[in-house]
Structures are given as structure tokens and as C-alpha cells.
């Protein structure tokens, strides 16, 4: 009788709620509610309590973080990892493509991002064309499948791009003349492409509205053909899809804000926007966010006037500022990038940390769930051995919804075993190759 019970319990275990987790005795940097030395109680993946005195419930998993620092998981709202492809650059308007269709949950960059304290990202379409594809937020749940990376209920985001990148294909010489030039070749053309597309979308929306109105009146009507390229643009016009726009120079940034205003939608984030500091007033007035690099400059012409004071200056002029990586490498130390906003322009520690947590969360519409340590929010946490704004801080543990997804001690202790397994696999592959004969003799068609 007894053994059966155990079996039954074991089978039921995954269905039962996970035990509560307590992160104990840490320097807690909440980002939005100040800092304290204390503990965080996690129940069902959510932060239940955070404070100086937290009672540890019976059976709770305890993570002792004495002397360590805990902050909300870092949010990188401009990345291209975990996707099999980035740019559908063959046309200037590719709003029919969706990055969520090409997710790669086995991209090692996910694990490396985790090891850098990142828990949520926006993996986006590239900037090869004026209107790119649709994307949405992901959590770095390494080991889960593509669906397991998605964030339930997160809003879609449409990626657009201005400046050098979308106009690059306009010049044939760039590619030795092998590629047919693609409109646009100038910033004038970029504006036109976007204006044409949204004008089309307005007409399309009207056609559909007319059709629905006819049906309502009980009239007979043929359904208009669905246009999957224009659908996301209609969602933008109706405020159901967020808008992120890659921009560099002040002129194109202003153009985009005016264009959005004209069509009645909001730009939720200007990406890069390295000259944002020149038009901070206009960006703030539009209530657009800015997600920028800490200190990149001079790698291309439109980055010639980029300054590392951009983040601090925009922030002081009332813009909601985030720092992003756009790089699987840089995303591993966004905490150090945030420190640059203190160095260049003198924002406070909390303001700097907000730029890699709550601010990027707002720009992707997830600030009710992530981006700060507050009761009710997802228990996405990073534990550092030192203050995260120090270059000497190392990530020790990363939790997503209360589950430990990265543990430095575990990673280090498993290295030897992983290496011997790798070597065994290499040997096995060599054996098989020997049996199969030289490469090139068999070719599948």
C-alpha cells in the first residue's frame, strides 16, 4: 500500500503548486520602491511580499543572499536573439512577417543573456526596411520550447526603421550592382513609404468597417479580402499593436513623431535614437519612449553626433529612457551600461537601474508584470555578489517566476562533466564519419 502512495504523490507533484521561495537577507534594490536589507517571499511565481522582516513559511525553498544584491530581472527591449531570421528586407513594407514564427529556443544566446541577468527581452525584426515585422516579448526560460518563451498576454509590437538602414538598398553600387535597387534611397522616400502604407491601411480599415456596418444593418455584402500585410498597421491605428521605430538622427525622429501624430498613433519607443538629445522636448511631448545605447558612436555616419550623455539628457528632459543591447554580447552586461548613465550625465542609481528594468518594461507594455520588485509582480530576479552598478559584480542566480534558471555555482561545477560529454560526442561523430566514408560521396537531394 505504502509504495503506491509514494508513486501517486510523485505523479501528482508537477500538478501541485511549487513551494514558496524566500530570497533571504539580501540588499534589495526594488528600483521603484527604494532599497532595503531584507527578504523577498515568492508564491506561485509572483512576489508575495518584500520587506525587512519576512517570515519564512514552512517548506519554503530558501535562497540565502546574505551580503548579496537582488534587483529585478534586466529587460532588454531591443535584441535579435532567439530568432532564426531577422530581416525580411526584400520589400520596403514587410508587416506581414512575424518574428514569433521563427523563434529558436535553443539559441545559446538565451542562456548567456540569463547569465548576464536578463529575464525579459523584445526580440525584433531588423532595420532593413521602413516597415519591418511584428514581434513580441519573450522570457529567457532556457530549456523550454518556443511557446515556453512567450509572455502570455503581451502586446504585439510593430518594428519600423528610418535612416541609413532602410535606404541602403536604394543604392545598387553598395552590392556591386548585383541587387536591384529597392525604393527608397533617401530619407524623403522612407517617409513616403510609411505614409503610403498607413494611407492604404486607413482605406483598408474603412472597407472593413463599411462591410461590418452593412452586415449589422442586415444587408448582404461580400467580405473584403483580408490583407495580412495591412492587418498589423490597422492594429497600430487602433492602438492594439505597439510601435517601435529604429531612428538615429534628430530630423528623422521628428519626422516620425509628426507622421504618427498625423495618423493618430503613438510611438512607444524610438530605438537607438542617438540624436534624441537634440529633440528631447519633442519626444517627451509625444510621450514616446527612447531605448538607446549607453555609449556607441562613430560606427556609421548617422552615429557621428552620438554622445554618451544621450540617456541622461533625454531623461532630464522628460523622456522615458531605456538602455538596450541590440547585441548578444552587450546584453550580458547591461548593468554596466546603466552605470554609464551615472558617469555621463549624473542620473541617480535608481534612475540608472530603471533604464534597464521598469522603463523598458513600460515601452513594451509589461510594466504591470515585470521591471521592479513589488508584491504582485512576476518573481523575475537577479542576484549579484556586488552592487550591480559595479564592474566587479558577477551574476550569481537568476530567477524567472520564482524558478532558478541560472545558477553560477551550478554552471561552474558542471563544467568538467559537460566537457567530457562533449569530447565523447566528438569521438562518436568521428566514428560514424569513418563508417559512412568520406564526405561528399552521398548527397541528399
Amino acid at each position, binding site marked *: 500500500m505504502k509504495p503506491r502512495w509514494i508513486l501517486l504523490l510523485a505523479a501528482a507533484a508537477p500538478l501541485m503548486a511549487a513551494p514558496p521561495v524566500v530570497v533571504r537577507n539580501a540588499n534589495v534594490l526594488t528600483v521603484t520602491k527604494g532599497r532595503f536589507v531584507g527578504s523577498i517571499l515568492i508564491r506561485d511565481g509572483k512576489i508575495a511580499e518584500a520587506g525587512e522582516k519576512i517570515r519564512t513559511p514552512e517548506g519554503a525553498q530558501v535562497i540565502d543572499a546574505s551580503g548579496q544584491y537582488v534587483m529585478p530581472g534586466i529587460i532588454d527591449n531591443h535584441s535579435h536573439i532567439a530568432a532564426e531570421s531577422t530581416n525580411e528586407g526584400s520589400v520596403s513594407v514587410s508587416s506581414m512577417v512575424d518574428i514569433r514564427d521563427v523563434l529558436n529556443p535553443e539559441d545559446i544566446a538565451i542562456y548567456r543573456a540569463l547569465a548576464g541577468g536578463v529575464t525579459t527581452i523584445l526580440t525584433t525584426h531588423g532595420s532593413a526596411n521602413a516597415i519591418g515585422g511584428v514581434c513580441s516579448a519573450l522570457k529567457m526560460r532556457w530549456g523550454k520550447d518556443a511557446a515556453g518563451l512567450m509572455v502570455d498576454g503581451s502586446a504585439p509590437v510593430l518594428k519600423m526603421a528610418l535612416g541609413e538602414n532602410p535606404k541602403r538598398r536604394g543604392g545598387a553600387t553598395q552590392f556591386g550592382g548585383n541587387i536591384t535597387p529597392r525604393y527608397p534611397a533617401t530619407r524623403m522616400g522612407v517617409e513616403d513609404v510609411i505614409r503610403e502604407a498607413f494611407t492604404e491601411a486607413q482605406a483598408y480599415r474603412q472597407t472593413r468597417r463599411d462591410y461590418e456596418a452593412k452586415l449589422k444593418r442586415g444587408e448582404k455584402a461580400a467580405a473584403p479580402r483580408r490583407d495580412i500585410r495591412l492587418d498589423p498597421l490597422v492594429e497600430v491605428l487602433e492602438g492594439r499593436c505597439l510601435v517601435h521605430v529604429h531612428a538615429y538622427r534628430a530630423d528623422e525622429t521628428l519626422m516620425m513623431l509628426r507622421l504618427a501624430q498625423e495618423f493618430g498613433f503613438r510611438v512607444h519607443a524610438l530605438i537607438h535614437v542617438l540624436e534624441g538629445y537634440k529633440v528631447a522636448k519633442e519626444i517627451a511631448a509625444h510621450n514616446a519612449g527612447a531605448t538607446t545605447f549607453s555609449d556607441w558612436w562613430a*560606427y*556609421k555616419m548617422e552615429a557621428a553626433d552620438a554622445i554618451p550623455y544621450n540617456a541622461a*539628457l533625454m531623461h532630464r528632459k522628460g523622456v522615458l529612457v531605456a538602455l538596450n543591447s541590440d547585441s548578444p554580447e552587450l546584453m*550580458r*552586461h547591461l548593468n554596466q551600461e546603466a552605470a554609464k548613465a551615472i558617469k555621463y550625465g549624473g542620473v541617480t542609481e535608481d534612475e540608472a537601474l530603471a533604464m534597464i528594468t521598469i522603463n523598458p518594461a513600460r515601452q513594451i507594455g509589461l510594466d504591470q508584470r515585470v521591471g521592479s520588485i513589488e508584491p504582485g509582480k512576476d518573481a523575475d530576479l537577479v542576484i549579484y555578489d556586488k552592487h550591480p552598478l559595479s564592474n566587479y559584480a558577477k551574476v550569481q542566480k537568476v530567477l524567472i517566476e520564482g524558478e532558478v534558471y541560472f545558477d553560477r555555482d551550478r554552471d561552474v561545477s558542471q563544467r568538467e562533466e559537460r566537457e567530457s560529454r562533449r569530447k565523447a560526442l566528438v569521438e562518436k561523430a568521428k566514428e560514424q564519419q569513418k563508417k559512412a566514408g568520406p564526405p561528399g560521396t552521398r548527397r541528399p537531394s
Partner: protein
Amino acid sequence: MRKVALALLASLPLAAGPEDSVLLRGGTVHPVSGPEIPNGAVLVRDGKIVEVGAKVAAPRGVRVVELKGLHLYPGLIDSATEIGLSEIGSVRETTDAYEIGDFNPQLRALIAVNPASEHIPVTRANGITSVMSTPGGGVICGQAALIHLDGWTWQEMGVVASAAMVLRFPIIGAGRSRGFEETPGGRTPFAEARRNYERRLRELDEFFERARRYQKAKAAGPVEKDLKMEAMLPVLEKKLPVVVVAQRERALREALKFAQKHQIRAVLAQADEAWKVAAELKAQNIPVILGPTLRLPLHEDDPYDKPVTQPGELHKAGVKIAFGSFSTSFSRNLPYQAANAVAYGLPYEEGLKAVTLNAAEIWGVGELLGSIQKGKLADLIVTDGDPLETRTQIKQMYIGGRAVDLDNKHLRLYKKYEGRQ
């Protein structure tokens, strides 16, 4: 100190004057070569450090700068950058780092250094006083120059006109067309890529042998002057180190064999897998220019922190290391490369040395730069804390004893637009 360095430095005293003499006192002096001196002082005369200690009397007529609460470090040295040779990376007209042709030992980076480059004031504002301005086209790319980030002309900027020959070691599937980075080899079938690689190795070998014959012929009697061969003589005489850019294990092993065969003074650069040949490096006494530490591991199954643990591993194995930014616009972040290595196992003092004294020694100016010691050039930075930490501010800078303006394009644009109502 080598003759080349002396030749250039001979012009320094000419420029020296009262503005090159100063007494810096009251701060914590971090000489790098020895223990820190709290409430220490450094006396600079005619551009050189003449006294370092807890108590230094102020000579009459010498300006005194009080550094209460501040710290004094030697200026930082970036051991690999294209500063001076490249302005906007993607705009060909603004870059002079990559010449056409595979064998160009006669090219001199120094004479192409643009003293008006915006990168110079921007980079030095973060504490970097000297850089190795490094060319990167072809196989033998030319001569790198060790320059001060201050001066009206490239001549004034030059510390060592020719500090190293640059050799980008051939690799299979040589997608690396220029600069420091390897790129995937494109669509060339492996067999063809391998043939190309072997041909390039052979050509490189033959080039060195040709230089050797030229050297012998010249010793035997008059020869028709060949500029490429002339430029190779200091390499063959082991007077000039050779920066060998080699990233992966295979290239590193080949490069080590090559260095031994041709008896060159190799300095490895961009050696991401140097940890795999650490024992050989130690045995052959070959230093490594590391960096960037802030990069991705080479292989998917490498430990996620390999680039930051490698510096500590190499140091432990007895290999001398220095850091390079391998970039222009990120040169100012050089100290953070060291900090990240320190976080993952490199002793702090070694991290600091890797951006100061080690670099000076590798480039043959250990008697001149890299630490706060009597007799050295007064390349100094005044900080409000640890220069390897991002949040630390550089308060003052002296290059050759002269106070350097820390203003730069970024600061100017910041101030201008801060004022926009």
C-alpha cells in the same frame, strides 16, 4: 630604451617649458610599480617625473596642484586600436587603416594619424593617454605606432614611431578581409579554402626568407634598395616586435611555430584561445594583447564566461598580458575590459598593470611609460576613484607633464543641447 624611441623623444625637451613642471600633492598616489602612497606627492619637471614620495618639497616657481581626496594613476595605454587612422567606421573616406596588398611592412601608421580626430579627445577624457595605432590590411599590414593622445602634429604625438610590425596570421577560409575580426569564410569549399590557406602560409614564409636573403646580401655588400625588405630588417634583427593577430587555437599554434622558425619577437593579439596554448606562450616568453574581454565566447559550448576568465588563467600560467580595445569608438572603455577580467579571477594589481606598465614593457618603453616612477614621462591621470570602475570620473590629465584639456565633442554637444529650451 630603444633607439627609435630616443630619436623621437629628443624633440620633447624642445617643447618643455614651465607649463611642463608641476607638483601634484595631497592625493593617493598609485604608482602601479609599487605600493600606493596615501597623501603622496609627485614632482614633475620638464615633462618628467623627478620625485615621488610621501613628502616632496615644492621648488620655487613650480605650480602646485592640491589633490585632496583624489587619486593619481599613470595614464592608461590601449595596446590595439585604430585611433587616428579611422574616424567613422563605415565611411571609407574616413578610414586609413587598411591598405591594398598582402605584404606592406614599409607602411607607417604614424604618418597617417590624424591629430584632429574627434576620437582623440573623447578617448583621453576617460583616462587613456597613449595608444597603439595599428594598421590592419593584408597579411603584413605595416608598422603600428605608439602615440600620445595629445599633440598638434603626428610627429608631436609619436612616442615610438615604429613600435611593432603587424602580421595578421593566415587562417583557413580567410574571411578576415581586414582589421582584427575574423568573419566566416563564405562559400568557398573547404578543399579550396585549405589550398588558399597553404598558399598564403607559403607566401608568408617566402617573404621572410626573401628578407633574410636581402639582409645577408646587404651585409655582404651594396644592394639595390628595396623598401619592403628594408622595413623587415628590424624584425629580423629582433629589434622590432611583431604583433601576430591570431584568434583560434590552430592559428595560434601555427603562429607559434612560425615565430620560432623565423626567430621573431612575437606579441600575440586578439588571441581568444590563448588559454589553450598558455604553456607554450610561457615557454616561448610571448606576451598577449587580450581583448576585448567583453565579447562572446568563440564556441557555443565554451563556458559563458570564457572571455573574462581567460586573462586570469593566462596570468596564472605566467603569460604577460595587456589589454587592447581593438576598436576606435570603444577605446575609452579599455579600463572596463580589465575590470571584468578582475571580477573573474585576474588579481586587481595585474588588471591595472595590463592597461599601464605591462603595455609599456611590451612596446619597449618600460623605462618611459606605464608607472609613476622617477625618470618616467609624466603621463598621469587624476581620478575620484578606481579608474577601472565605470562610475569613476577622470578629473585631470597630464601628458608629458602638460595639463591636457578634457573637453571633447561629446561634452560640447551635451552642454549645447542641455541649454535648449
